[in-house]
């Protein structure tokens, strides 16, 4: 099945009460399939056909505030249109689950993959997890609800997957039994927001200067605390549903996935489906005796500082391969890697390689070249791999 349908399958199995989404390429296949499931009665959810992404996320906000499980999905401009509401959802601590099928932002208009859309939302207070394979799409979608709905977290979450290069690609993946998913993820029990006339609550009130900072701090604390919850949920899921098809997911999910990092002197740091190609190149390089590895970031928000510090401790050269940018500065992941290395007093040489914007193919040659440049060192801080 294609990775889009791995997501639809997972959403079916987590039994959402409300689905509100507006179709946008390359997210369409996910919600198309979900609407079929609702029409056939395979999902008991209310499917709200909205007139925009702003309405989709707003409908989910309203639904989740009544104490039910809500789901939405979007890409690119659609996510940009949701931007205002993203902060309201996280501020109100509503554990909505969303899939972002990563696509470039206009202008020029472009429907293909990069990470600019969700990276622009990294400060919105949503958890962000990124998938590399169809299996990870399925698994992370189930896990995101378990994490978000944890009473110590109560934060919305996005699962990112690469548009087309992952979303429209057919891959084998394992689907557990419905009963096992039900055991893992029971019905959502709201602990702070419901619509119940017998206990009326005010949700989303004004936060005066006397309270705003403290409320924001509780949100930041929850985000920080979620690192432990994510780790626990990842472990629980990995044990309950052991990997069935080789190479489709890590044995045990963790904030990062390390590939041949044990004695690595040169390391790639990357997110998403490009990691598959990087692993292939690493295999070739390793056969030639190069000490090279990859750190794939799965949990991007909260940022797994300690896990990355530990992983990159002995590495001398680091190539941060990114499908996103911040005009006027370096790529967002690069900046954060530099900041944690500074904290760790590392003297590693870090360089930022911008790849694959707007669906530009990232070829094995590109990755080989990145390795050569990173290993040699002493070049420009930011290199564009056209």
């Amino acid at each position, binding site marked *: 099945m294609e990775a889009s349908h791995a997501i639809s399958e997972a959403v079916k199995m987590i039994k959402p*009460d409300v689905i509100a989404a507006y179709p946008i390429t390359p997210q369409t296949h996910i919600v198309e399939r979900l609407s079929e499931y609702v029409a056939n009665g395979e999902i008991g959810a209310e499917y709200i056909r909205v007139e925009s992404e702003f309405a989709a996320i707003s409908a989910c906000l309203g639904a989740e505030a009544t*104490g*039910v499980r809500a789901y939405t999905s979007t890409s690119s401009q659609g996510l940009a249109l949701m931007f205002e509401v993203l902060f309201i959802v996280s*501020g*109100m*601590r*509503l554990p909505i689950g969303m899939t972002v099928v990563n696509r470039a932002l206009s202008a020029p208009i472009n429907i293909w993959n990069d990470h600019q859309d969700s990276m622009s939302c990294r400060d919105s207070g949503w958890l962000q997890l990124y998938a590399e394979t169809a299996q990870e799409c399925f698994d992370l979608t189930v896990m995101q609800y378990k994490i978000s709905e944890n009473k110590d977290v*109560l934060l919305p979450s996005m699962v990112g997957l690469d548009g087309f290069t992952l979303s429209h690609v057919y891959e084998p993946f394992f689907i557990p039994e419905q009963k096992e998913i039900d055991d893992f993820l029971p019905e959502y*029990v*709201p*602990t*702070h*927001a*419901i619509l*119940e006339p*017998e*206990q*009326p*609550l*005010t*949700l*989303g*009130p004004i*936060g005066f200067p*006397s*309270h705003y900072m*403290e*409320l924001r*701090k*509780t949100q930041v604390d929850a985000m920080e605390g979620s690192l432990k919850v994510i780790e626990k949920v990842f472990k629980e899921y990995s044990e309950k549903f052991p990997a069935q098809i080789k190479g489709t997911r890590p044995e045990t999910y963790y904030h990062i996935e390390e590939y041949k990092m044990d004695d690595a002197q040169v390391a790639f740091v990357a997110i998403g489906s490009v990691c598959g190609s990087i692993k292939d190149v690493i295999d070739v390089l390793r056969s030639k005796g190069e000490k090279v590895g990859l750190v794939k970031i799965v949990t991007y928000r909260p940022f797994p500082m300690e896990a990355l510090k530990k992983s990159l401790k002995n590495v001398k050269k680091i190539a941060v391969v990114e499908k996103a940018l911040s005009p006027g500065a370096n790529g967002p992941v690069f900046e954060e890697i530099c900041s944690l290395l500074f904290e760790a007093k590392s003297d590693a040489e870090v360089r930022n390689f911008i790849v694959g914007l707007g669906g530009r193919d990232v070829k094995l040659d590109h990755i080989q070249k990145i390795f050569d440049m990173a290993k040699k060192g002493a070049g420009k801080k930011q290199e564009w791999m056209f």
Partner: protein
Amino acid sequence: MKKQRIDYGSLKSKIGNVEVTTGAVLESTGSTSKTKTGAWRSLRPLVDDKKCIGCGRCWTYCPEGCVHKKAEKVFQVDYDYCKGCGICANECPVKAITMVMEEK
């Protein structure tokens, strides 16, 4: 959906001396009845009963629902919530409403 009850006490936490709740949820409702937003007003609509023909346009157009219909053709401004936007005065066909500066 099962009937749920929120354990409101469990949502409370303190940072310094400031008490907050998860997601800023408040157990009390109806705070609008306590917060009199009429204090925002700088211009007050005054109705000249002699000129008023009781057409009800002020009642229809008031964006805040602050003109109340007391009886047939009798309308009264609710100064607790009127913010003095002046739409009523603008819409009045017989110019029975004048906006005057609020004074202490």
